[in-house]
Structure formats: structure tokens, C-alpha cells
């Protein structure tokens, strides 16, 4: 019917007829199918073996049970706030503005490294300090650190496998020893890391613990020189005496009491890797004689329960980095970033339950 239409030079030769239509329709269908298939492959739907952020968070939920509204790991915590003041030494290593010497506001979180929000403090020997440095220039830095010297696994695949091996059995509430043994036998790096962790002196309290950022990053200074580093928060307050086991929240109670007495301080210490040190494997500690540079002081002068504090609804995503700090070849920052984003997506859509640690804002020196 179209042959009666006036065809301009740009109007084309008119409809294809006959069997050629079928061939051309099939070609169009093939183009659409190939595009859709490529999209599905990229999204992982054709690769059930690919470790996705979903599967990592599913594994955490399988081990810890469902606790809507809470973090899928490090679920029991308290918000902290204060300032960081660089001493200038960090600027030789990194051009990040946080090291320049201005007072940088910090908000963060101290937590038990357990996946259940309702565990007694005594059940978790591993604790974490997570921080957001918020310099005036807006170049934010987020980091999470733990009071262990090394991490038990080398990458996200091993982490997921470790979670399966450590999954509590319904009958006993404990992992199957045979599964744990089998995992350790197959992963000597984990066995060695757990020995290193066990051999480290235990901390007595949140305030007197050293928190190690177990992953390696690159510091880049103003001259463009790069160095592989790890960092730690080393406490200025000493003390090896365990706080009294006053109740299920004894560690948090002790921390709240300590801040009531006065601010707490940590030195941020940056360890620079030697040229041959492995930076892609957080199960391996670097030799003790590596250059360690104290770059500034963290002062924590406020603690507040998560229900009202400012730390509950953010991820301490290790890829939130200022100019001057970059990811290295350590696979964990990317894996953490991806998995934290999935955990946040889930918990932010859930109704919040009250935290086990209930305390309204306490500022240093207020009462005691």
C-alpha cells in the first residue's frame, strides 16, 4: 500500500516482501536476544558461581540469624564522636587534607565484631573502631579497624568459605569442629593468621585497645610519590585491667564511664611497607621493623547509643577515600565496599529495633 506515497530520497526503498521478511525479523530477534543475554551475563544471572555482594550478606545472615534493622556484622555497637588533629608528619606520605593539621571532626562507632546485636560483650573477643573523618574541604575518609593484628582470610571467596565452615549447628549453637578443621587444613594462611591473632595480647577495654586497619592502601603525597601503607589507632590511655563483668554490656558501660571522666586519645600510626612486603594479603603481618609514623591524634569526647547517635545509618565503606589515599592491590576494600552497600540496602529498608546499648549523648567531663 505504501507505493502510492511520495518517496523522497531519504524515505528508503519501501517494504521488504516475501521470505526475506522472515530472515530479517529473525536477525532483529537475534540482536535483541544477544543484547539481553549479554546483560544477563554481566549481571551474573548466568554465573551462579560468581560471588556477589548478595551471597556474602546471605552467608552472614545464615550464620547469625535474622536481625532486621541491624548491621549484618559488627551488629552491637555505640556511636562515638570527636576530632582528629594531624601533627604534620602525615603530609610527607599523603596529600590528604586530614593530615595537614587542622581540627577535623570525626564521627564513628565502636562495636563487637559479632553478627548478632544481642550478644553479651564477654562473648566477643574481637572489637572494631570505625571512623568518618570529615574535613572542612569535604574530602571525606572512612575506615574500619579491628583489635586483631591480621585478618583471618585472604579474599572474599575465602571469607565466604570461612563463614560456611564457622556456621553454627542448630543442635549445639557451635560450628562443626570437623568443618572448621577441614577449612583450616585447606587454608594454611588462615590457620597461621588465627595463631597470630591468638598470640596477640588481648585488650582489656575499648579505650585501651589498639585498632588495626588490616588492609593495605596507597598513600600519595603532593609530589606524587606513592607508598603502600597500613594504619592503626594506638591508645594513649594505658591499662591492662579487665573492667568488672558488671553485665552483658560491661565493655560499653566501661567505655561510657571512661568518657564521662574525660576524653580518650589514640595516635594514628601509619606503617609503611617495605619494597618486598606483600600488600595483597591481610593474613600476613609486615615485619616489626618497618617505618611507623605517628601522624596525629584522635580525641573521642562523646559517646551515644545508636538509636539517637549519628553512626547507625552509614556504612564505613573503605573506598570512601580522600585525594591522597588510594586502594592498593589488597582485594578487601572493594569486597567490603560492595558487601557493605548490600547490607545497607537491606537494613535501611527495615524497621529499626532498639540497640542493646541504651545511652543518650555523654560528653567528656560531664559528671562522673
Amino acid at each position: 500500500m505504501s507505493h502510492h506515497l511520495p518517496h523522497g530520497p531519504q524515505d528508503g526503498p519501501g517494504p521488504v516482501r516475501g521470505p526475506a521478511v522472515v530472515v530479517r525479523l529473525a536477525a532483529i530477534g537475534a540482536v535483541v536476544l544477544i543484547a539481553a543475554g549479554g546483560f544477563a551475563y554481566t549481571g551474573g544471572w548466568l554465573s551462579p558461581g560468581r560471588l556477589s555482594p548478595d551471597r556474602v550478606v546471605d552467608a552472614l545472615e545464615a550464620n547469625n540469624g535474622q536481625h532486621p534493622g541491624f548491621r549484618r556484622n559488627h551488629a552491637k555497637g555505640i556511636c562515638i564522636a570527636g576530632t582528629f588533629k594531624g601533627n604534620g608528619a602525615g603530609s610527607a606520605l599523603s596529600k590528604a587534607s586530614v593530615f595537614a593539621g587542622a581540627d577535623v571532626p570525626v564521627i564513628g562507632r565502636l562495636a563487637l565484631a559479632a553478627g548478632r546485636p544481642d550478644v553479651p560483650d564477654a562473648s566477643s573477643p574481637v572489637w572494631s573502631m570505625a571512623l568518618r573523618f570529615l574535613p572542612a574541604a569535604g574530602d571525606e575518609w572512612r575506615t574500619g579497624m579491628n583489635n586483631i593484628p591480621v585478618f583471618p582470610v585472604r579474599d572474599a571467596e575465602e571469607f565466604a568459605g570461612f563463614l560456611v565452615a564457622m556456621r553454627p549447628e542448630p543442635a549445639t549453637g557451635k560450628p562443626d569442629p570437623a568443618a572448621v578443621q577441614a577449612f583450616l587444613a585447606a587454608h594454611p594462611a588462615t590457620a597461621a593468621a588465627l595463631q597470630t591473632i591468638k598470640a596477640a595480647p588481648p585488650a582489656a577495654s575499648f579505650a585501651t585497645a589498639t585498632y588495626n586497619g588490616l588492609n593495605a592502601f596507597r598513600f600519595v603525597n603532593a609530589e606524587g610519590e606513592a607508598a603502600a601503607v597500613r594504619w592503626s589507632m594506638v591508645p594513649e590511655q594505658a591499662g591492662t585491667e579487665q573492667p568488672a563483668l558488671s553485665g552483658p554490656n560491661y565493655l560499653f558501660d566501661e567505655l561510657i564511664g571512661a568518657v564521662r571522666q574525660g576524653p580518650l586519645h589514640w595516635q594514628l600510626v601509619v606503617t609503611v611497607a617495605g619494597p618486598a612486603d606483600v600488600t595483597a594479603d591481610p593474613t600476613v603481618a609486615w615485619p616489626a621493623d618497618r617505618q611507623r609514623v605517628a601522624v596525629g591524634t584522635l580525641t573521642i569526647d562523646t559517646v551515644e547509643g545508636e538509636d539517637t547517635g549519628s553512626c547507625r545509618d552509614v556504612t564505613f565503606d573503605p573506598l570512601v577515600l580522600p585525594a591522597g589515599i588510594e586502594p592498593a592491590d589488597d582485594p578487601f576494600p572493594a569486597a567490603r565496599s560492595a558487601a557493605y552497600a548490600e547490607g545497607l540496602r537491606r537494613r535501611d529498608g527495615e524497621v529499626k529495633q532498639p540497640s542493646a546499648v541504651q545511652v543518650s549523648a555523654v560528653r567528656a567531663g560531664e559528671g562522673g
Partner: protein
Amino acid sequence: MSGHFTGTARLLHWLMAVLILTMLFIGVGMVSTVSTRYQLLVGIHRPLGIAILVLALIRLGWRLGHPPPPLPADLPTVQQALAKLSHYLLYLLMLVLPLVGWGMLSAQDYPVQLWPGVHLPPILPASPMLYATLRSAHTVLAYLFFATILAHVAAALMHGLVRRDGVFSSMAP
């Protein structure tokens, strides 16, 4: 009066076709992996999304000032309506998806970094439930965008290979 889109319209169309398809594949790929590719893909996704938003605004402005050539008069009314509707949808999605992405980072109190040291301000207040809603919307709208693009490609190829009515060549590079 030519039966072609203007050179500017065709340039914007094909440039954005490449950028948007790249963006959709990066997006669906980055949320499926915990490998170190994640940081590379996220690092591209954010500035590319803002680039698409800027280009979409320029393109919308150009389109409003330069009406497209008419569809063939013998195209059935239903197809005319579908063509119109799908183009409204494509314009809407190329504007809304970057804004939802920017908004969801704002709602989770996350820095909107284009590249190290360069940030955009938040466009929404921090709110967990708002974040969860926008995050889900970002995924659903991205799938809708990809499906609409597939329909658009199939329709364009129908015009170019079967109907041969000049519609395809009006936007051909």
C-alpha cells in the same frame, strides 16, 4: 525541509547511546561482584551518570527547539502512539536515573565523588528509608531503561530492515 534529525541531534543520540549502554552494563555488573573490578566500575559509574544527566538536559533543550521529522503517514496509529510514548519514557529515564542515583547517595549520607577530590553536594537529606526506596527504584528503573532500549532498537531495525521507510536513516549516523 529534510527528513533527517539535525546533525547535533544525531551526534547526541549516538554519543548517548554508547554512554547509556555502557552505563547500564557497568551498573548491572558492579552490583554482581565483590572483586576489585567493583572499585573500577563504581569509579566510572558515578561521573558517567552525571555526564549522561548533563547531556540529557542539553539534548532535551535541543529537541524542544528542533522538532524531529514526522513519522511516515502510513504508520498505524497504535505504532505512532507507542513510538511517542517510548520516546517520552527514554527521555524521562535518561534524566531520572542519574538523579535517583545522586539522590540515593545523598540519602545514605555518602559522598558524591566524581573523581578524587571533586564532589557534588547532596540533593536530599540523609534518611535510611528514603535510601532503601531510591536504591530499589534505581535498579527497577535501570531494568526498565534497558528493556525500553531493546524495544527501541528492535523498532528501529524494523524500520531500517523491514519497512525501509526512511525512519532509521533519519537518525543514522
